[in-house]
């Protein structure tokens, strides 16, 4: 027989699963440290690529000057500048991602806790309905 209470509960759970729950459940496959590390690596790779592209644009922009003065350029100073800015960008993005992703993970854990509570309640409804013989 149809059980209205159970259908309500299942609908709620299914709605959660099909929307934001999708990401929460996906996150629950990771440990927190693993997830945060993974996000940091992704963000560092992306910011590195972005930085390389910016450097390309700058290089083309200055190419006339660079080629003209190729012999007299102070490569050491340029290298330190490029590296210094790169380390700064990496640090900012890495730290930012670490904070953001750990907050995100905690939030999703909280919601997932409620989800599991409802699942338990659903399970109880089932057991009440079909008592073991």
């Amino acid at each position, binding site marked *: 027989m149809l059980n209205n209470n159970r259908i309500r509960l299942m609908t709620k759970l*299914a709605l959660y699963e099909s929307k934001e729950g999708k990401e929460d459940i996906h996150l629950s496959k990771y440990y927190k440290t693993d997830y945060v590390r993974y996000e940091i690596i992704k963000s560092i790779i992306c910011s590195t690529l972005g930085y390389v592209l910016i450097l390309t644009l700058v290089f083309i922009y200055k190419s006339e000057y660079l080629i003209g003065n190729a012999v007299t350029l102070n490569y050491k100073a340029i290298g330190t500048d490029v590296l210094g800015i790169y380390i700064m960008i990496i640090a900012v993005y890495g730290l930012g991602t670490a904070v953001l992703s750990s907050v995100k993970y905690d939030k999703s854990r909280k919601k997932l806790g409620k989800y599991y509570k409802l699942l338990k309640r659903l399970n109880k409804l089932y057991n009440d309905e079909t008592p073991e013989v």
Partner: protein
Amino acid sequence: MMPLLVFRERVRGFYQKKDIYLIPAAKFIFAFIAFLQINREIGYDSRFLSIPIVLAISLISAFTPSSIMVLFALALATLHVYYISPFLSIIVIIMLLIIYLLFARFTPRLGYVLLAVPILYMMGIPYMIPILLGLIFTPIAIIPTACGVFIYYIFQVIKAAINSQSNTSVEDILKLYTGVIDSLLGNKPMIMSIVIFALILLVVYYVRRMRFDYAFEISIAAGALTSILGFLFSDLIFDQTNQILSMILGTIFSAAIVFVIHFFELTLDYSGAERVQFEDDVYYYYVKAIPKVNVTPPQVKVKHINVKSSGHGLYRSEIRKQDIEQDDDYDEDEDINSDNTED
């Protein structure tokens, strides 16, 4: 006010019933307008100007996630640039990649803002975006808004460069490139717009969170005021006094649109019907969950003079009571998304 509220309920009821058709239709219209605007603005390649092609890509974007639409639009714009100057199109692609890798990646759900800002710029109402995002989102929406402004100005600068381009020797290309970068980095109106948009967004966000009546409506007005004052300031500084009238009209129009959107509460996620499927051991369930409507449209009442009809009223009040009793077993902490913590 009452007829308006009833009208709102009717509109929402219609939306809730037909949202499965209405959302693709709205996306189709938005995509169509967006592609037409791009074609009008930088339509160099005549192959993409034909209406059947525009219709076809709008139709595809109507049924795919909004990021696909953004991708199509950017690809279309880049292809138009490619037709005139492959070199400039490479620069455009590199800049878009930088925007994505360094900024837009962090707000994947707001990808459509990147497209909406330039399109609304062309239509003269870009002020709508910061007001709307301040109303429904957090200040992190400043990132995609700023990226959207940047994208708009990239294509403006590219357009100006294409118009001035004459021949294509290597030296000219280099000169063209440095010109583009110079006019992009030294573009003070662009930086000013980004700052003002961020300001509008913050003002709307903080006013709407204050605890007084009509905070939402007042926040829209405050956002519009910030926009008018800010752009008045920037227009006067950069000597663009001919834009002031269109800016003020555009702001008022944008605020009106945002107000309409807010009034119908179309911004809320749960305003539409939900469809879910699940199963247990015995059944398959196909559930369509429709949110309850608050103000019921008035029924047409026929007053009978010769018959006493007190029975109807009794019957209805009984039903109400049942409804309320049924609602009682709704449990607050069943709501996964509610923020209350029990522990």
